[in-house]
């Protein structure tokens, strides 16, 4: 009777080289705004948790997103740095919003007589990194912290002169059950 012995090999998933290169480039570039938003948290053990919020993950499995993040870190940093990553998650902006990771919302509150148009605001938001996965006509610009949202508002006002009074920052509130601790 045949006796088959198989080692367990860590599966290396084929990831999109183009996306991995783009993410690696973002890691090297350290841009101030736009997607992807990369959040690294370091634990006392030296291990890292990495969340990459990026609409380009759309339609990609969680496994592939994780593999791609690890590959990009290896390209941008080193294999040793990649080995420090304990958890890597990729989320689209709508997924991150649903998970409560982006509670601060920046949007234009236009009134008659404002010196900028809705179309100019829409374009400026997209340049700033707004998600258009929910529709190109209504970009969604979200952030994890109030500081990030305020910084975006400042940049939007610079990008679109005379638009400063138009931009509003709001914060999602949790569900009542969460607030009262039920």
């Amino acid at each position: 009777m045949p006796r088959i012995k198989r080692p367990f090999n860590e599966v290396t998933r084929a990831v999109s080289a183009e996306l991995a290169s783009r993410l690696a480039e973002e890691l090297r570039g350290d841009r101030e705004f736009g997607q992807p938003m990369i959040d690294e948290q370091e634990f006392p053990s030296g291990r890292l948790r990495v969340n990459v919020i990026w609409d380009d993950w759309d339609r990609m499995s969680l496994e592939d997103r994780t593999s791609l993040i690890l590959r990009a870190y290896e390209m941008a940093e080193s294999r040793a740095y990649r080995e420090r990553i304990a958890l890597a998650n990729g989320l689209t902006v709508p997924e991150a919003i649903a998970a409560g990771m982006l509670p601060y919302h920046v949007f234009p509150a236009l009134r008659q007589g404002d010196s900028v148009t809705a179309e100019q605001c829409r374009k400026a938001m997209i340049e700033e990194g707004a998600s258009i996965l929910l529709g190109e006509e209504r970009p969604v610009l979200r952030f994890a912290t109030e500081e990030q949202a305020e910084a975006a508002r400042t940049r939007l006002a610079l990008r679109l002169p005379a638009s400063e009074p138009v931009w509003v920052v709001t914060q999602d509130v949790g569900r009542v059950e969460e607030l009262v601790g039920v």
Partner: protein
Amino acid sequence: MPRRLLDRCQPDSIHEFRLAARRRYDDALTLAFSGRRTASIYLLGYAAEMTLKAAYFYLVGLSEKLPITWSGHLLPAINRGRSLGIIWPNSGAGHNVRAWAELLIQVRASSQVNSYSAAFGREVQRQGQRIEQHWRETLRYHKNHAYEYELTQVRDSVEWYLVHSEDL
């Protein structure tokens, strides 16, 4: 008169989860052998869930037979995960295999001594992600028939957790 099944059940505990995970895995194999793939996946998901929960509560020091309750243990664990930044949706929170896997990785990574090796941690996460792709506890409400590859993927992942249950 013999006691009814529900009266014979022990409270949830690490010990009970581990034994039940193995039983549900065996049940799932029996279903798979008779072509009942969706039902097989349905039970396999619970085998993974119980294995991960047992591992977490063992890691945080619960004794093997201490009753595990929703308000005393499960909800605080979920809230801990959320406070650590784990994506843990409200719907079916207690059953989220990927989130339980990530909780284990993250709690271990927070400690100087208990961290998984990078490769092992990646596998723990990967298996959870794979199960999440195919399994929800709500599968029971649906009439769909699973593909063979879906069953294979879930079964492989659950087997990985069972094989490594002592190391999780």
